[in-house]
């Protein structure tokens, strides 16, 4: 077999089981693809020796007939996941040299299932960003290219998206606090699902905003997302917000039959100034689901317009507290301090040079909205609005809606550096369709359904009922079948 790195998880799994290929072969194919792809900036720590060792162990398991679905499949891991003995820096200078003594629950589950780690993937610093430009390692690059511009793969899971789209792994882990899986998936023509809050353990994932963070898979299609999500989720007593619920066999739920399902189209997601190609994509997707037998209904989620401001109060508030631990005292980078400097100067210098501008901005915003005198006006207000946003969704689900279809992003991938001088709010607008899902704790999936006018991939988002990822994946599968999106970026790197 050639181009083993281009296989999907399901294909590679079946080939491994048939004995047509070994995990070492798959892994070597990926490693060699990675070696030739430095221009994409997707990997920030490569772990080829670990990968080969894991692949050999996986091959032995497969031979012994003890092979879970993911056994032997090479994956990339977002740098936000703590991986034992391997640099885990959340793409931040402040965690320079940090190698955890522990393995995150999600990666433990993946590796226990026999998955192979190829290395750590680029991202926005502490998952704060929508273009992967805030990384201390420099930006990752979108493998899609239609002119001489280099494009963003989106963020924060930009390295994961770039690696999956360019076949530098069979699939990758991502995390999503406001759209960090779904937006980059849409920008790179791949699939990404953020499960219900509480589905995947957050233990061992560097925290950004604890009440919003969720891990999820970024894959080449919906079936792969189902296979990988099943391995990633499950109850973890080490995470108090983890749900003690059984994990269904998601792949077995992919029938493609959505006859009689009700799909809601929220009118508030028609934004002023939204590009025509996005409107068309959305309308086309709606037709596809209708043609597949779903009932289409217009719905209203009246508090949608408050979602972005609410998110940009709650997420920075939690982040300002979560990031207080990066103080140079116990691990990571500590600034050189001057003569006569005390502990305050050490904190200030360490955090000033350790955190990038976007992280500093959000820590400052978060500190401000929690401060005495502003707490009620900002943070408490935002919490109340969040409850209303959640209720919007509960109401439409109560009316019988099974899933909601929206665009994943308000545009196709933009050029790297293009937003450099823009108001930070312009960048935040990338999350306009995705943050509501995090605020409400719901599962959301981004599926590529077409190419835009310039030839760049575009994605649609499906939002499901809480804990019903299986049903959501099946609807996404039906949409994927109908859209027939198979385009791949042309190799230029």
């Amino acid at each position, binding site marked *: 077999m050639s181009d083993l790195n281009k296989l999907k998880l399901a294909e590679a799994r079946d080939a491994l089981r048939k004995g047509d290929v070994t995990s070492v072969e798959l892994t070597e194919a990926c490693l060699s693809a990675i070696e030739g792809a430095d221009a994409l900036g997707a990997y920030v720590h490569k772990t080829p020796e670990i990968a080969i060792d894991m692949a050999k162990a996986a091959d032995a398991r497969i031979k012994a007939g003890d092979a879970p679905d993911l056994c032997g499949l090479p994956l990339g891991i977002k740098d936000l996941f703590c991986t034992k003995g391997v640099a885990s820096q959340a793409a931040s200078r402040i965690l320079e040299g940090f190698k955890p003594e522990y393995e995150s629950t999600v990666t433990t589950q993946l590796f226990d299932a026999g998955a192979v780690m190829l290395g750590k993937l680029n991202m926005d610093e502490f998952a704060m960003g929508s273009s992967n430009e805030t990384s201390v390692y420099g930006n990752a690059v979108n493998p899609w290219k239609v002119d001489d511009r280099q494009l963003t793969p989106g963020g924060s899971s930009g390295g994961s998206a770039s690696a999956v789209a360019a076949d530098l792994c069979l699939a990758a882990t991502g995390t999503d606090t406001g759209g960090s899986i779904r937006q980059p998936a849409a920008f790179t023509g791949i699939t990404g699902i953020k499960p219900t809050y509480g589905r995947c353990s957050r233990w061992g994932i560097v925290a950004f905003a604890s009440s919003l963070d969720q891990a999820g898979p970024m894959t080449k299609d919906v079936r792969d997302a189902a296979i990988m999500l099943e391995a990633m989720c499950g109850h973890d007593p*080490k995470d*108090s917000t983890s749900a003690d619920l059984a994990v269904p066999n998601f792949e077995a739920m992919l029938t493609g039959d959505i006859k009689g399902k009700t799909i809601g189209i929220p009118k508030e997601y028609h934004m002023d100034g939204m590009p025509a190609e996005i409107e068309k994509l959305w309308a086309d997707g709606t037709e596809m689901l209708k043609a597949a037998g779903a009932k289409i209904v217009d719905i209203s989620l009246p508090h949608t317009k408050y979602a972005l401001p609410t998110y940009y109060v709650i997420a920075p508030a939690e982040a300002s507290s979560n990031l207080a631990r990066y103080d140079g005292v116990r691990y990571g980078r500590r600034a050189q301090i001057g003569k006569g400097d005390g502990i305050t100067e050490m904190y200030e210098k360490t955090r000033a040079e350790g955190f990038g501008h976007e992280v500093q901005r959000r820590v400052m915003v978060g500190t401000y909205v929690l401060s005495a005198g502003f707490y009620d006006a900002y943070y408490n207000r935002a919490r109340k609005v969040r409850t209303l946003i959640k209720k919007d969704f509960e109401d439409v689900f109560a009316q019988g809606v099974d899933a909601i279809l929206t665009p994943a992003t308000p545009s196709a991938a933009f050029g790297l550096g293009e937003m450099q001088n823009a108001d930070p709010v312009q960048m935040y607008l990338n999350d306009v369709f995705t943050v509501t899902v995090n605020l409400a704790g719901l599962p959301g999936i981004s599926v590529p359904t077409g190419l835009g006018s310039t030839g760049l991939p575009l994605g649609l988002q499906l939002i499901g009922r809480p804990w019903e990822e299986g049903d959501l994946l099946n609807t996404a599968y039906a949409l994927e079948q109908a859209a027939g999106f198979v385009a791949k970026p042309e190799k230029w790197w």
Partner: protein
Amino acid sequence: MLDLSFESPKPKVIAGAKHDWELVIGMEVHAQIATKAKLFSGASTQFGAEPNSNVAFVDAAMPGMLPVINEFCVEQAVRTGLGLKAQINLFSAFDRKNYFYPDLPQGYQISQLYHPIVGEGEVIVDMEPGIARLVRIERIHIEQDAGKSIHDMDPAMSFVDLNRTGVALMEIVSRPDIRGPEEAAAYVGKLRQILRYLGTCDGNMQNGNLRADVNVSVCRPGAYEKYQETQDFSHLGTRCEIKNMNSMRFIQAAIDVEARRQIAILESGGSVDQETRLYDPDKNETRSMRSKEEAHDYRYFPDPDLLPLEIEQEWVDGIAASLPELPDEKKARFVKDFGLSEYDASVLTAEVQNASYFEAVAGAAGDGKLAANWVINELFGRLKKDDRDITDSPVSPEQLAGIIKLIKAGDISGKIAKDVFEIVYTEGGDPAQIVEAKGLKQVTDTGAIEKAVDDVIAANPAQVEKAQQNPKLAGWFVGQVMKATGGKANPAAVNQIVMAKLGL
């Protein structure tokens, strides 16, 4: 119904240069929960371990680590609330208190600001028999302790020990119902006693397992009563908080010196700044800890890593059913059932082990008053001499009861009993057998006593004459007879016969 009625003590009055002042004190007592594991990590809480050896990844705030509540700590807090007759909140929640310090690795302390687990309760603080102060408890919440910064090991560096980081504390917050330094110390003492009865805190103040922040203000006589009527704090003076006191003696001294400092300011026309102060026992003064500019804005908000704590009434009821008898009830019962004085009952109930020991003695001996005398005067005195604890007393309650039974039966005198006690204390053994074997049994046979009296009278005619002149000298004959009988004669019988024979 047990009688627990009491009167309130008079508030402490300090005479200023111009007029009299009263004190108003409220306390925040931090009690380390008696538990083997920390509040949100499985790390050990053992005191005195090597620095930084009792530290889990969560305690060191490693990236991605998450807190998980220790259910036993919650149970201990509920038990404490029930012991203080307080409202138990079935819904409570954890909040983050944010500030930077090297011994606070997370950069925030997990506490309960908005929804504490325990609401209003009360403590009766005994001052003297029949006099006690009722101190209202405002709330009890659970929170993490910080680590320890050590600044005196190196001229340039500071060191941090995270062993205490994340250890579970209960913060017990009182209303400003305490009215003097002695009451403040007695309040801490009473809380400590109750916590030790409940087994929820070992009360070891030296190790810092029980420490108090003391809020002190002063007001003119009459102002406090207005506050009581209205609960309006504007009737009271501005308070200062003296942090981290872990000695009853220092608590009293600090309150006194702080009140005098405030009075001096007020009488010279100044005003007291609300601030946090530290007490320096060497100089006997309080000092400002930080200026207003440095005042923390703790930016409290609900901890998103922890779900609200919801407990079931049934679970609380189960804990309530397992509560031991508490000091107030025990004391009242000792007074009522054993006829003890309130003072003796207080002494015996100070520690639950003492009370249990006493009850065992009283039960076996069938005499509460005698048992109380022997436990308080002989046993406690002897143990104190050896610096021993009741829990390793060489004399068991059964042995002490045995001695008391011998006294009651008239087999030995009180004096002989003390000798027997010393033998049992040092050598062990059954008191009755010791008395038998050593021939210590009291002689009550009047014939034998009469003979001894006759012998002494016959041998000392001069003394007889003197005694007949001065009856007070009859005691000399009693002493001689006791001597002659080796102390075994019943002293009352000897006395009676001597008097009769001398014709007195």
